[in-house]
C-alpha cells in the first residue's frame, strides 16, 4: 500500500456512520508507551532514535500483515504529504513538524496509526466512526498486547506506564470523542458546556485547535487525568458525558427551530447557496458553511444532499487534500479557486447553471 492510495479512502473520523453519527463524528483512543532501555525521545541521540525506530519498526510490522500496513518515514515525506496525514488525523501536527528519525505505521482501513519517536517512543491511536469507545479500546488493547510481547515497555510498579511528560503517566491513555455542535455554538452555550466539563476534569478542544471558534463547529472531548483510574473508568467517564452533550445540542437545535424557523432555514440555505456558487473560498469559510449545511440536512431543511458527501467535503477541501487531488502544488489563492471549483462540481451534480461556458 502507498500513501496516495489513502486519497481514495474516506477518513475514518469522517466516515459518518455508526451510532449517533449526526452529532458524534468519531471515537479515538491513544496510548503513550516507551521502551525501557532508551532515553525518552527528547533526550535521545540520533543513534538512539535510529535504534528505537529499528526496534519498533520490527515490532509494529509484526502486528498486521505488511501488505496492509503502510510504514512511512516521516522525515522523507514532502511537506504536503505530512500535512495530508495531519488532516486525516493519522499523525499529530508535532510529529509532522518536528525533526529527526521518526515514522508512522497506518493500517489500510485507517482504523489505527502508530507514531514512532513522537514525544514518546510510541503513540498508538485507534479511531472509529461514531460513538464506539468499547470497540476502540478492544482494538487498541490488542495492538498494545501484541507490541508488548515483542518489546519491553518502561513500566513502574507505582506510576504505571512511564512517559516523557508526567501529564501522561499511568495509563498513558487519552480517550476522545469528536462531536459536531453547531447549535450550541449558534446559541452561545458552548462556553458553558466547556466550563462544566472542566469541573469534572474533561478537556475540550476545537478541531485543529486554531482560533477561538472550532473549525466547522467540531469539538473533541477527552480525559485530562491519566493516572489512578483504570482504562475502563477513564473510558466510562468520557462515554457517560457524551449523551448529555448530545442532549444539549438537540435542545439547542429545537430551540433554534422554535424561535425562528425562517432564520434558521435562511442561514442554512444561504450557506448552501454560497458553497454552490462561490468562485473562490477559504478553508475557514468552507468549514463554517459546511457546518451549517450539515445541520440543515440533519434537521430536514435540505433534502437533496447526503451526510457522507458533506463529511467527505470537510476533508477534501483541506489544503493538502486539495493539492493531492489536483496533483499540483497550489498557493493559497489558487487553492481558494480550486476549492470553490471542487465544491461547485460536487454540490451541483451535472448542471452548473452559473458556469462561464454557458451564457
Amino acid at each position, binding site marked *: 500500500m502507498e500513501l496516495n492510495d489513502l486519497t481514495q479512502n474516506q477518513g475514518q473520523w469522517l466516515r459518518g456512520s455508526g451510532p449517533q453519527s449526526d452529532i458524534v463524528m468519531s471515537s479515538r483512543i491513544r496510548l503513550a508507551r516507551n521502551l525501557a532501555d532508551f532515553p525518552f525521545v527528547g533526550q535521545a541521540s540520533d543513534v538512539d532514535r535510529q535504534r528505537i525506530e529499528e526496534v519498533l519498526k520490527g515490532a509494529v510490522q509484526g502486528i498486521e500483515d505488511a501488505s496492509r500496513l503502510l510504514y512511512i518515514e516521516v522525515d522523507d515525506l514532502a511537506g504536503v504529504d505530512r500535512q495530508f496525514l495531519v488532516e486525516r488525523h493519522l499523525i499529530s501536527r508535532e510529529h509532522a513538524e518536528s525533526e529527526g528519525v521518526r515514522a508512522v505505521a497506518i493500517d489500510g482501513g485507517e482504523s489505527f496509526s502508530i507514531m514512532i519517536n513522537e514525544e514518546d517512543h510510541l503513540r498508538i491511536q485507534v479511531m472509529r466512526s461514531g460513538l464506539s469507545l468499547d470497540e476502540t479500546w478492544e482494538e487498541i488493547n490488542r495492538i498494545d498486547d501484541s507490541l508488548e510481547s515483542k518489546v519491553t515497555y518502561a513500566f513502574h510498579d507505582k506510576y504505571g506506564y512511564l512517559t516523557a511528560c508526567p501529564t501522561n*503517566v499511568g495509563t498513558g491513555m487519552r480517550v476522545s470523542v469528536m462531536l459536531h455542535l453547531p447549535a450550541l455554538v449558534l446559541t452561545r452555550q458552548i462556553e458553558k458546556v466547556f466550563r462544566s466539563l472542566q469541573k469534572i476534569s474533561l478537556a475540550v478542544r476545537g478541531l485543529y485547535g486554531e482560533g477561538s471558534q472550532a473549525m466547522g463547529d467540531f469539538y473533541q472531548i477527552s480525559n485530562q487525568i491519566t493516572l489512578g483510574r483504570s482504562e475502563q473508568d477513564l473510558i466510562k467517564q468520557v462515554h457517560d458525558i457524551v449523551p448529555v452533550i448530545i442532549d444539549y445540542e438537540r435542545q439547542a437545535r429545537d430551540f433554534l427551530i422554535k424561535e425562528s424557523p425562517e432564520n434558521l432555514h435562511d442561514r442554512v440555505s444561504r450557506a448552501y447557496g454560497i458553497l454552490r456558487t462561490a468562485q473562490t473560498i477559504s478553508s475557514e469559510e468552507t468549514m463554517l458553511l459546511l457546518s451549517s449545511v450539515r445541520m440543515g440536512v440533519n434537521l430536514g431543511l435540505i433534502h437533496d444532499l447526503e451526510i457522507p458527501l458533506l463529511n467527505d467535503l470537510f476533508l477534501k477541501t483541506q489544503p493538502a487534500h486539495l493539492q493531492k487531488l489536483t496533483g499540483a502544488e497550489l498557493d493559497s489563492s489558487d487553492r481558494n479557486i480550486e476549492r470553490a471549483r471542487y465544491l461547485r462540481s460536487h454540490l451541483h451534480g451535472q448542471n452548473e447553471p452559473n458556469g462561464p461556458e454557458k451564457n
Partner: protein
Amino acid sequence: MKCQKCDKPATFHITELTDGNPQELHLCEEHAREYLSQSGMGSAEPENMAAALAHQMAQQMAVGQTAEELARLDQQVCPFCGISFYDFRSRGRLGCPHDYTCFEAQLNPLILNIHGETEHTGKTPRLGSRASQEKTQLIRFRREMKEAVAEEDYERAGKLRDTIRRIEQGDSPEETSH
C-alpha cells in the same frame, strides 16, 4: 499554616524564582491551581495545556519549602540519562524512564497535583513484568550460586546453575539484549 488567600490550610508552598530573587507563596490547592493556571498559558489544546501546566508547576513549585533546598534538588542528576531536575523544570520533559525513580521526591507531589492520585491502577504489561521478575530471580540465583560455591556446597550450586540455565533458555523471544 493558612493559605494566603483563604482560611484553608496551605498545602502548596510555591517558590517563585522567575524574577531572580525568590518569593515564597503559601496556598491551598484551589488557590495554587488558580495561581499556576493564571500565570500565562496560550495554547488551547488540552494536551499542551496539561503539559504547560505541569511545566509551569515544575518550574514554580519548590517541593522543599525553601529556595536553598530547591536549589539543592535542582542539581540532582539522573545517572542514566544525565539530565538534572533543573533541566526537567525548564523543559517540562523527563530524560529517561529512570527519572521517575531518581527524582521521585520532587516528582511525586507534582504527579499528585496533576492527577489527584499517585498510584497506577490500570493495565499492567503481562510479559514485561514476567521478564522483569525473571531478571530479579536470576540476580538472586546467581548470588546464591556464588555463595554455594564459596561454601563448597557443589550439589546446591549445580542445581542453581541448572535453574539459571533453564530460565535463560526459556527466556522470552525478545532476548536479553538490553
